[in-house]
């Protein structure tokens, strides 16, 4: 069901956006590739020189890159399963009939975290997780836990980032899975419920197959956003303490913005981009296999 059109029409429809994305996406990328072969430091522009693959060698051998990648992966494998587990519970509760008003309100409340400016989440974390003035420690006190130094301890700071990632994105996962649940034909679900009383069996054998597309979508988007994660740790911990929360985007920003080594930052970015594109391609083809 598609129309054959002449070149001019095609160009008129597609040309502007292709050109725009080439200009703002591909040109800077080409520039980055070019500079990644140079020693190119903003504070030492007079000493810029072609150094071939040295920057890439530095990235791959320095440990900082792999450390940051490891932390990024660690964040993904700790936060995302929790987001999916809690998100699924929320979605199942919201999917049940009845209590319409409550559920509408809950759905609205779920929108709040994911719309919050990411940088603001980090600022909120600083305020709420402060060891002395923070409301978190006050609440811990109510249940008899001594004040915890959250932002100042490497492990706790990482857990802090995981917590806020869960806060911001669990509602998203819940709403995606809820949308998935609505694709289950009601008559099939009804029939299944007549057969068994176990919600688990209904979930496992009736609902889950319909949830697969949603779950894949969640995985794709959470992967992309975890790789991009910058604003929240930047405003919350700036990558610290030590480098406990230095995720890949935070590391690259540090190299480019504070050591001013644009060449090295570009090499980091290109390698990260390669990883991103490969993952994106795999995910997209996996997911859209059925659609196409």
């Amino acid at each position: 069901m598609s129309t054959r059109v002449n070149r001019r029409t095609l160009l008129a429809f597609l040309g502007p956006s292709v050109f725009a994305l080439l200009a703002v996406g591909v040109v800077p990328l080409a520039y980055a590739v070019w500079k990644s072969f140079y020693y190119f430091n903003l504070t030492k522009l007079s000493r810029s020189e072609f150094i071939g693959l040295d920057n890439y060698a530095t990235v791959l051998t320095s440990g900082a890159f792999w450390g940051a990648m490891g932390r990024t992966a660690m964040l993904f494998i700790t936060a995302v399963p929790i987001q999916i587990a809690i998100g699924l519970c929320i979605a199942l509760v919201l999917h049940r009939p009845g209590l319409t008003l409550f559920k509408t309100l809950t759905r609205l409340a779920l929108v709040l975290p994911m719309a919050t400016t990411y940088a603001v989440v980090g600022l909120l974390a600083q305020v709420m997780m402060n060891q002395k003035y923070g409301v978190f420690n006050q609440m811990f006190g109510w249940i008899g836990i001594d004040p915890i130094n959250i932002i100042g301890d490497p492990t706790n700071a990482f857990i802090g980032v995981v917590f806020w990632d869960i806060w911001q994105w669990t509602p998203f996962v819940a709403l995606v899975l809820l949308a998935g649940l609505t694709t289950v034909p009601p008559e099939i679900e009804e029939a299944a419920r007549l057969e068994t009383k176990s919600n688990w069996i209904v979930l496992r054998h009736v609902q889950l197959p319909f949830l697969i597309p949603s779950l894949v979508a969640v995985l794709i988007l959470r992967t992309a956003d975890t790789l991009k994660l910058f604003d929240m740790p930047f405003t919350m911990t700036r990558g610290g303490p030590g480098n406990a929360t230095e995720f890949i985007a935070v590391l690259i920003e540090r190299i480019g913005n504070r050591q001013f080594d644009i060449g090295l930052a570009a090499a980091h970015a290109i390698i990260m981009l390669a990883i991103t594109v490969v993952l994106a391609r795999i995910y997209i083809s996996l997911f859209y296999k059925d659609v196409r």
Partner: protein
Amino acid sequence: MRLNTKASVIALAATSVLGAGSAWADAHAWSLEKAAEPYAGTEVNLLFLDRPGYAAALEMIPEFEEKTGIKINTTTVPYENALGEQVRDFVAGGDIDIALIDLVWIGNFAENDWIVPISKFTGNADLADPELDMEDFFPLTLNAFGGWDGEIYGLPFDNYSGLMFYNSCMLKEAGFDGPPETWQELMDDYGPALTKDGKYAFALQSKRNETQSADSFARMLWPFGGSFLNAEFRSNLNSEESQTGLKFRQDLMKYMPEGIVAWDHAETVNGLAQGDIGIITEWSSFYSTLVSPETSTLGDCLAVAAEPAGPAGRKPALGGFSLAVASQADDAEQAAGYLFIQWVTSKANAERYVRAGGVSARQSVYEDPAIREEFKFVPALVESWQEGVPEFRPRFAEWPEITEIVQEWGTKMMLGEVSTEDGATEIGKRMEAVLDQAGYYGGDKPLAQ
């Protein structure tokens, strides 16, 4: 617009900054209003920080604007962004006309020709105030904050020495008449006596940013005889003295609050101000925060002394900002910018600056008995500025890269993730790689820091 300042540097280098007397022959006729006449309406842009010295200057600026017709546009940024914002502005040929230079940035700014030597203006009788009196600045501050490689670029504006602030009431209760004289006393006597009931003897701000390298790491190197580099510009961090200092820092952590690696100035000053911490070593500029009843509960309990001494003597932390004219400014902006720098750092305005909460680098203002009486930090400050180490942190152009390394590994040391030896080796290796890259070992570059 980018002027070729190289030529003027060479031309004017002969005219010593302090001895340009001939140019001031008809000085009696000079007045700010007259000097500024050609530049009325000129706008001058610069970055400010959210710190007491800048608040003081902001109080004074309207008067300057009224007298001269020059418009001073300040943009407040956090310290951690100030270097990046300025580097990007200078690289891009932006609109900053006056550079705000932390002492560790001066080598960088000067070697890139982003700033103009002050002699270009002090040698111009139309601009130079006959009352300028450069000798009145503490020599340490003028040379360290404003000078690079024998040339003066900036005039000291927001000036710090590390000082010891303490809660004299808390110390008295624990049976101490005065503050510790040496770091060892702090560790042996004050530490155990003051650390109890949720209170701590000491807090050393150590957050992973410039605070870690300047306030924490370097502070423990120098008094113990250590340093970043030896005479050949190789790492000196594994020397016995440096290691003693770094180990001392680890040991002292038992008298500091938990999570000290996340503490920045705000937390530390507030800890003392709220009575939770007995002693801190902080910049002089926090005096106004610590005496203000709005931000501090200390009242008369606040006392100030010079930093404790180590085996190598008293080597207090040194920091501070100068203002210098940016070379990318056009002629009118440069002249107007210079007039502002000269005015805001002048001898005549020093008392006003101090009273508004700033810390002036003018020696004359601290000779006033009323000032000495009213501002308790003055004697300690004057003493500290006699003994400071200009290269407390190396000031060469490579510092921004090196500080990142020190911040990362210094924090790891404190967290116990690496030993002081391994951490120092790691910093040394990376630091030498940066210096090698910069050409110090090939003989291309003089070993200046």
